[in-house]
């Protein structure tokens, strides 16, 4: 029995590691290809090792323009969707109001609707309203689909929060604003930061919705899409690898900061209570 269970344990872990291999293989290939000098523009095979792609990531200037544009769109969409979504999360968790279930539906639906449908329907709206498509229509679309994810993320953090910490602050004569500024905000901040990072990565990586609402504006995913027909410059893999490394570092940093922020907030509550 014991031997069989030992085997069963290892069997599951073995399959899991194989699947993880399947999930990580493409990233390793992307990293590898970033050091590749392809034999021709349309070749996807390894040819020979070079550092040129990393030394001159912007050799194809169109690509770097697209990356910069994606970052601008990502930043604007992140700020707007994080603010709007956080406000909604506060209202949903902290207040009672009429029409809650309808609103929950409105927030949930964008996450359950295929991107294709959201992209085409926005296109239909912009065309019908005579709005020329470009940078700002992309921003509008991104704020729309990022917002629901922000609401869900911040809501989770808010509802898991210990209300007694705020009550304690109020009992100790903190004003509503002071309580919000020194207790609520620091405690919710990791949730807001996580939501903002999620929004940025969703926006930066979006292709389908962007494709329908971009007009002639080219974002990084749209550049890759277009280039896949003409031949991909190897620098695309440099960007892909750099994105991966930066995201990995950010995740590490935020999980550390989250822990520290929580400790800091607890200290704020604890300090006045500790002094008689």
């Amino acid at each position: 029995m014991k031997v069989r269970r030992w085997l069963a344990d290892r069997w599951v872990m073995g399959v899991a590691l194989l699947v993880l291999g399947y999930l990580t293989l493409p990233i390793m290939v992307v990293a590898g290809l970033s050091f590749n000098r392809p034999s021709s523009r349309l070749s996807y095979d390894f040819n020979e090792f070079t550092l040129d792609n990393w030394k001159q990531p912007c050799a194809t200037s169109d690509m770097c323009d697209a990356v910069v544009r994606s970052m601008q769109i990502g930043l604007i969409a992140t700020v707007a969707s994080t603010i709007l979504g956080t406000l909604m999360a506060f209202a949903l968790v902290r207040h009672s109001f009429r029409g809650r279930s309808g609103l929950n539906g409105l927030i949930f639906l964008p996450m359950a609707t295929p991107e294709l449908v959201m992209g085409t329907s926005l296109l239909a709206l912009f065309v019908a309203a005579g709005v020329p498509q470009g940078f700002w229509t992309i921003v509008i679309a991104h704020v729309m689909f990022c917002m629901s994810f922000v609401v869900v993320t911040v809501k989770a953090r808010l509802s898991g929060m210990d209300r007694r910490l705020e009550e304690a602050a109020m009992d100790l004569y903190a004003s509503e604003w002071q309580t919000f500024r020194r207790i609520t905000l620091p405690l919710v901040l990791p949730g807001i930061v996580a939501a903002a990072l999620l929004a940025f990565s969703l926006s930066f990586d979006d292709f389908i919705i962007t494709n329908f609402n971009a007009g002639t504006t080219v974002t990084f995913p749209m550049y890759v899409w277009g280039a896949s027909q003409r031949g991909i410059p190897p620098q695309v893999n440099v960007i892909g690898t750099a994105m991966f490394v930066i995201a990995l570092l950010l995740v590490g940093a935020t999980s550390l900061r989250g822990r520290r922020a929580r400790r800091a907030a607890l200290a704020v509550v604890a300090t006045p209570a500790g002094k008689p």
Partner: protein
Amino acid sequence: MSALAHVPTSAGKPAPPPVRRGRNRLLPYLLLLPGAAWLLVFFALPLVQLASASLYDPAGSLSTGYAMTWAFSNYPDALQAYWPQFSRSFLYSAIALVLALLMGYPLAYAIAQKAGRWKNLLLVAVVAPMFTSFLVRTLAWKTILSDNGALVGLLRDVHLLGPDGRLLATPIAVVLGLTYNFLPFLVLPLYASLERLDPRLLEAASDLYASPLRAFAKVTLPLSMPGLIAGTLLFFIPATGDYINAELLGTPNEYMIGNVIDSAFLVRLDYPQGAALSFLLMAAILAIVFVYLRRAGTEEVL
């Protein structure tokens, strides 16, 4: 924590909620207004616009304008013209879903129950693919499945593929790409459910002479149901609407409905047809989701 021991004097008994003054009754609506308005104008209203565009006169064009003729015939016409792509979308995403379940369940189970202190690291490894661009990752599969690549060479050597057999530009490549791209969406909710599974329940089952297989069917599987349902939906909905994998890893013979809708709106500029197909896709997905949720008997997932 010791300093916090002072707090419960006021919080121990259920304190009445703070008295809300007049302005506070308006506050939730003020907080909600900008976000809700944004979603109404840029999510709900476009759907209405898409519905009406799907009923435009198909004889119109973007330059001459479309007349609203309530042309319900757009729907059967579009379906008739693109039935292969439409049904293929659901076929491919269903096969990919089965593959993803076979891979994702053991993975989620192993991370939740067997990983010990490696749990967080393995979780990061599951999400890691999403750290880099979807399109760049999908293009990497072109290299992996390439005719000159090691994988195809190996499969040819062991005669799983004929001497001219290919992986790229076949349905296999598209289904593998779909499975790969949406697998994390299946694994994460499944993990969340399995993480809460008390291993003592499995011990109890085996003490009561249940075989591991029976313990799985009677204990693990039912308890992981909420995660399983959420995960399959999070996988199935985007996979059915995806057309990046079909475009980059397949040929027009593998095109899914997304490819057709993309060309209807952006190349052929046939808005009524594109809108009708978009709506059909959404209706079909909603119908499947609804039936599935009824069958699974859980509504709390949403």
